[in-house]
């Protein structure tokens, strides 16, 4: 499904691009973000009970609410980074260069802005609220703009079903992506219908050859499609796909190996720094002990204290003390027995 396919030119009055232009801009922006590894957030904003308001107070009220909502959206965001499109009662907002956390933050701000809006109609103060679906391109399955938009739509539906005045981020990227790929596969096998997302990705793709072997070829097609690899000639699928797959795997592995190496180097660096710090502290300890030894006019006694904290020779020291205590005890025990044997009389 393309969410912009039914849009009409009724949003012209709000100074936006036409729905088709906006869709193209958003797709370009999404592709650009994917190509350069940039974060991006998509909000799909629904105005709760907008149809009812129109029924009760007329089309002007609807337009006023829509205009105020767009103004609020512009207030809480960086306008120059914002792409807006109107789709029936919903606003699609795309925020390039925005981390996923920003989606929730913006949604909260919008909800608050909506709660503060007041519209006077027939002596009554009307209040509105938003339902918002949030999606971002940082999920590993958010590999197409359609998936992103579908996730946002799911979020909006859940928020709306829960009574509105809230935002939802469903994280259904994997499921939606699988569904999207299944549709693409189906379209590819059926000869690619015009106007579908597959056609948008590869508008000049020829019909799939009938003699293509099932099994491995299908699986590869799935995998490559998921990776965004365009398959020009399904007849040469195996050879081309395997080559591409190998390159992709190498590309995918290289950063990981590089990352592992970097992590190991970082750990080594930390350990080396700790060792050098400990060595420096030990040096300070030794010089301090030497200083104290000079002050005290004694060296080896202090050194014996020094050995214990360092764990050097402590055991033999303890053992020696035990032997001494045993000797003291034995001598005292003997004396006690002698006293008792004499009944307390003098020796």
């Amino acid at each position, binding site marked *: 499904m393309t969410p912009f396919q039914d849009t009409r030119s009724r949003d012209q009055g709000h100074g936006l691009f036409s729905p088709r232009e906006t869709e193209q801009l958003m797709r370009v922006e999404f592709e650009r973000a994917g190509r350069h590894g940039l974060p991006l957030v998509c909000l799909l904003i629904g105005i709760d009970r907008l149809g009812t308001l129109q029924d009760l107070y007329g089309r002007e009220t609807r337009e006023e609410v829509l205009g105020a909502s767009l103004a609020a959206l512009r207030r809480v965001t960086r306008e120059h980074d914002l792409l807006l499109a109107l789709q029936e009662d919903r606003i699609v907002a795309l925020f390039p260069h925005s981390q996923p956390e920003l989606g929730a933050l913006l949604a909260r701000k919008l909800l608050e802005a909506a709660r503060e809006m007041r519209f006077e109609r027939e002596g009554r103060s009307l209040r509105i609220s938003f339902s918002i679906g949030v999606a971002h391109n940082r999920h590993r399955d958010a590999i197409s703009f359609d998936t992103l938009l579908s996730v946002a739509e799911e979020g909006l539906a859940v928020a709306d079903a829960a009574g509105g005045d809230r935002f939802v981020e469903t994280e259904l990227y994997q499921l939606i992506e699988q569904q999207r790929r299944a549709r693409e596969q189906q379209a590819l096998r059926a000869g690619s219908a015009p106007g579908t997302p597959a056609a948008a990705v590869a508008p000049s793709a020829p019909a799939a050859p009938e003699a293509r072997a099932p099994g491995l070829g299908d699986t590869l097609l799935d995998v490559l499609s998921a990776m965004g690899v365009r398959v020009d000639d399904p007849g040469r699928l195996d050879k081309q796909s395997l080559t591409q797959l190998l390159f992709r795997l190498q590309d995918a592995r290289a950063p990981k190996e590089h990352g592992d190496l970097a992590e190991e180097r970082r750990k080594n660096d930390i350990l080396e720094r700790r060792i050098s710090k400990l060595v420096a502290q030990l040096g300070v300890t030794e010089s301090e002990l030497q200083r104290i030894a000079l002050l005290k006019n004694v060296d080896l*006694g202090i050194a014996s204290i020094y050995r214990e904290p360092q764990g050097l020779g402590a055991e033999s020291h303890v053992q020696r003390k035990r032997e001494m205590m045993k000797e003291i005890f034995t001598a005292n025990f003997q004396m006690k027995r002698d006293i008792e044997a004499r009944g307390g009389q003098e*020796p």
Partner: protein
Amino acid sequence: MPAARTPGILHVGLDLGTSRTSIAASNGQRETVLSYVGYPKDVVSRKLLGRDVLFGQEAADKRLALDFYRPLGAGVIRSEGAGAEGNARAARDLIAEAVRRARPQAGELVYAVIGAPAQASLKNKEAIMQAARTCVDSVMLCSEPFAVAYGLDMLDDVLVIDIGAGTTDLCRMRGTMPEESDQITNTFAGDWVDERLSEEIRKLAPQAQFTREMVKSLKEKHSNVSANAPAAIVELPVAGKPQPFDLTDAIRTACRGVVPPIVDGLAQLIATFDPEFQPRLKQRVLLAGGGSQIKGLDLAIEAEMRQRLGEGRVVRVEEPLYAGAAGALKLAEEMPDEFWEKLK
């Protein structure tokens, strides 16, 4: 080593000295009391003083109304001659008083290690042990200089000089329990200095009136063996009128008198030690006990050692009054419980 405090048991270290008795306890209490005990002479003095027994400075101050005891002589209980029985009783009461000052809780077992002179006889040691057993639950004796070394954890190749009032104990530590041959006791100690100082004063000012306590007091205030010691101008009564006397030289002469016997003992202990370790031993001499507070004594011993033994380094312990008691306490705390149980 079980150094942590055991619930229900109070470990104490006791330095039973001729002049002072110091106690250090595992509950943190530390007390020193002069080793004087006095009992009211009669019913009148009993009523006046309001107590059956007085200790320390209070006993000394009121000794005219008391049967006054200094139960320890030469570091042991005076058990010979007239007053032996009284001294034994006074020693028991003195130990009990010291333990009381350690503030044991009701029902708490008291395990004590008592420092005895290095060469105290078996009879003397037994007398101390019997006196102590009446007021503690378990008692052990150890050599005083050993306790000092143990407290400082200096058990290897150390010579300890413990100058008390009655005796000066020398002990050679060589990593094991000191034996008879490792210890020397002489009587060139605080009391000897008092006697010597009395003689010097008598020579200097035959007409001056003074007592032994007065001499001890001025010695403790002015003791110094340095050549450039500040002048010790002391007022002593002459025919009832206080007169100033310069006792600087007299005090220096009396105090310096302990140095040669000490170095004699050190020389003996060093000479009978493994020649390979003799230089190390000479560099590790600990000076402890009340007598170590004589100003310049460490330097005087060092100078004498250099002259007679070629070299020497003397270190004064930081707490002369408590070094023995603290060492005895450490020993008490580290002694295994089963040993204490067997000595009950």
